[in-house]
């Protein structure tokens, strides 16, 4: 089952309406599931229906094996030793960087910086690029769809600089209001930080249009790809953004590793962020000169095994094929939406024009935490809460929602278990 990895030159994957990729066959889904050891383990005595992949995905054996193999066969520190294991560890780590670059469509692997995840990537850009570019009275533009991790780093920067954080509004359906966003791109806007996919609603933002409008005004753009990468991937060169951040653990890789891609001239211009080993060229007490990209931003011994695991995860995704995974997830989401329509108390939260990976909803006036607890006892894992998007929840007049989210290994049985569980919730609160 080999499908070609993401094609170049189209920016983002096609929208659902024009997606040509065939979905996965039932036998393919069964094979995929058999690659995820945790899915075979009962939870509370029941088969696990894991519908919380937007929080973190489960990991295929290929990733677990790659991490184990690295520690058992190659483990050493990178970029230092003259001995064989250090050579191997360095090779493993740098090969993982090449895999990330290939996944993102980046021309140059040295534009890929390994970090703890999307959160650290946004913080790095805010604290280096942001600190250089943003001054008193300037503005940083985000959107109401953002996760806290693409709000708070900018808020900290704005507070430090006396700048103003502004937010482009969403419609009641959960789509970005592009006209309003355009009006907010003003002469003082120094950066636009926008998500690719809303983690709370599943909204796919129209990045090509947004980026075109920002670039027309000379405003650099950071894309938070934490939720987008696992469903849509990215082709950063075609996309036209300046920075792209994502987390490994949301795309079948381990926790603690992620990457930032940035345009080389911008990364060159940015000062180092954290100081330490590996990020320097020479050090004396009078002066230190810094290493070249990407090492300038990778102080200290990196998460080598994590990078190896992330590389294995991206290999795994390429083997299945991201378009096929996305088509499969869309089919399951359509099934879930059909099933939810039969429950009259269900209120969908967010009905965006284009959706990826996530369905958010409320069941009558049942609090999402109560629904989540009852679903859990039926073996169904969902997220119940504000999804680290409190400004968005406030905008929609809610405190929280129930969120079901999907991945390559999700199947119809998961959707059916959720629908059965929701009927049980209804019975408790009848």
């Amino acid at each position, binding site marked *: 089952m080999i499908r070609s990895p993401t094609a170049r030159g189209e920016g983002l994957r096609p929208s659902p309406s024009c997606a040509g990729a065939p979905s996965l066959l039932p036998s393919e889904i069964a094979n995929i599931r058999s690659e995820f050891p945790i899915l075979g383990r009962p939870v509370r005595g029941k088969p696990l229906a894991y519908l919380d992949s937007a929080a973190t995905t489960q990991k295929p054996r290929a990733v677990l094996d790659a991490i184990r193999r690295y520690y058992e066969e190659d483990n050493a520190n990178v970029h230092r030793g003259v001995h064989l294991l250090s050579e191997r560890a360095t090779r493993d780590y740098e090969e993982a960087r090449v895999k990330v670059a290939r996944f993102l469509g980046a021309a140059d692997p040295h534009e890929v910086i390994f970090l703890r995840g999307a959160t650290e990537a946004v913080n790095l850009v805010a604290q280096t690029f942001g600190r250089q570019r943003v001054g008193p009275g300037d503005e940083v533009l985000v959107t109401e769809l953002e996760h806290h991790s693409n709000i708070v780093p900018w808020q900290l920067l704005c507070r430090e600089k006396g700048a103003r954080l502004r937010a482009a509004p969403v419609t009641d359906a959960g789509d970005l209001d592009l006209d309003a966003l355009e009006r907010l791109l003003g002469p003082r806007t120094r950066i636009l930080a926008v998500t690719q996919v809303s983690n709370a609603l599943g909204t796919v933002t129209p990045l090509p249009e947004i980026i075109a409008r920002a670039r027309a005004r000379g405003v650099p753009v950071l894309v938070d790809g934490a939720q987008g990468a696992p469903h849509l991937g990215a082709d950063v060169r075609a996309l036209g953004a300046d920075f792209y951040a994502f987390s490994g653990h949301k795309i079948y890789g381990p926790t603690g590793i992620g990457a930032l891609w940035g345009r080389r001239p911008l990364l060159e211009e940015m000062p180092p962020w954290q100081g330490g080993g590996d990020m320097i060229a020479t050090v004396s007490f009078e002066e230190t000169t810094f290493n070249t990209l990407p090492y300038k931003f990778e102080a200290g011994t990196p998460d080598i095994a994590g990078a190896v695991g992330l590389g294995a995860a991206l290999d795994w995704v390429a083997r299945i094929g991201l378009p096929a995974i996305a088509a499969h997830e869309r089919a399951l989401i359509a099934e879930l939406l059909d099933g939810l329509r039969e429950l009259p108390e269900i209120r969908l939260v967010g009905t965006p024009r284009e959706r990826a990976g996530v369905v958010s909803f409320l069941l009558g006036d049942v*609090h999402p*935490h109560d629904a989540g607890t*009852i679903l859990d*006892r039926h073996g169904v894992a969902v997220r119940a*809460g*504000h999804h680290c998007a409190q400004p968005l929840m406030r905008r929609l007049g809610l405190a929280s929602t129930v969120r079901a989210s999907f991945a390559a290994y999700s199947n119809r049985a998961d959707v059916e278990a959720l629908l059965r569980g929701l009927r049980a919730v209804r019975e408790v*609160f009848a």
Partner: protein
Amino acid sequence: MNQLSDLGELYQEVVLDHGKRPRNFGPLDGETHRADGLNPLCGDRITLHARVDGGVVRDVRFEGSGCAISRASASVMTGVVKGKTAPEIDALFERFHRLVTEGPRAGDEGALGKLAVFGGVHDYPTRVKCASLAWHALRQALKGGPAPVSTE
């Protein structure tokens, strides 16, 4: 199923009833103490109003949104603390907190009265904060602290 009978322990009829129709809900005329309670896990927030006279809590009411457990806990709590002093309420909370974290023990019925219906919470570690939120807010209010309390 054992797991599902646990659910019945958590969502007892009394709990569901108080969750749906909370007692002592709304603002309080002549309040002397007030505090906000915030559960960062879910973003739920309640405001606790109290009228204290001669060191004794004469009346308590609460407002805000929350799950069935937090609303029921606030509702039952506001009923049982009337007529008690702050030290008595602290002692009651200690017993209640042991109930929701460790489970029921002998003597709970007598010591806790109506609060004993929350004995099922200990099976649900993520819901302990829901059951404790109103208590934290009340104790903060009685201390006169102006800052919102958090369950963290």
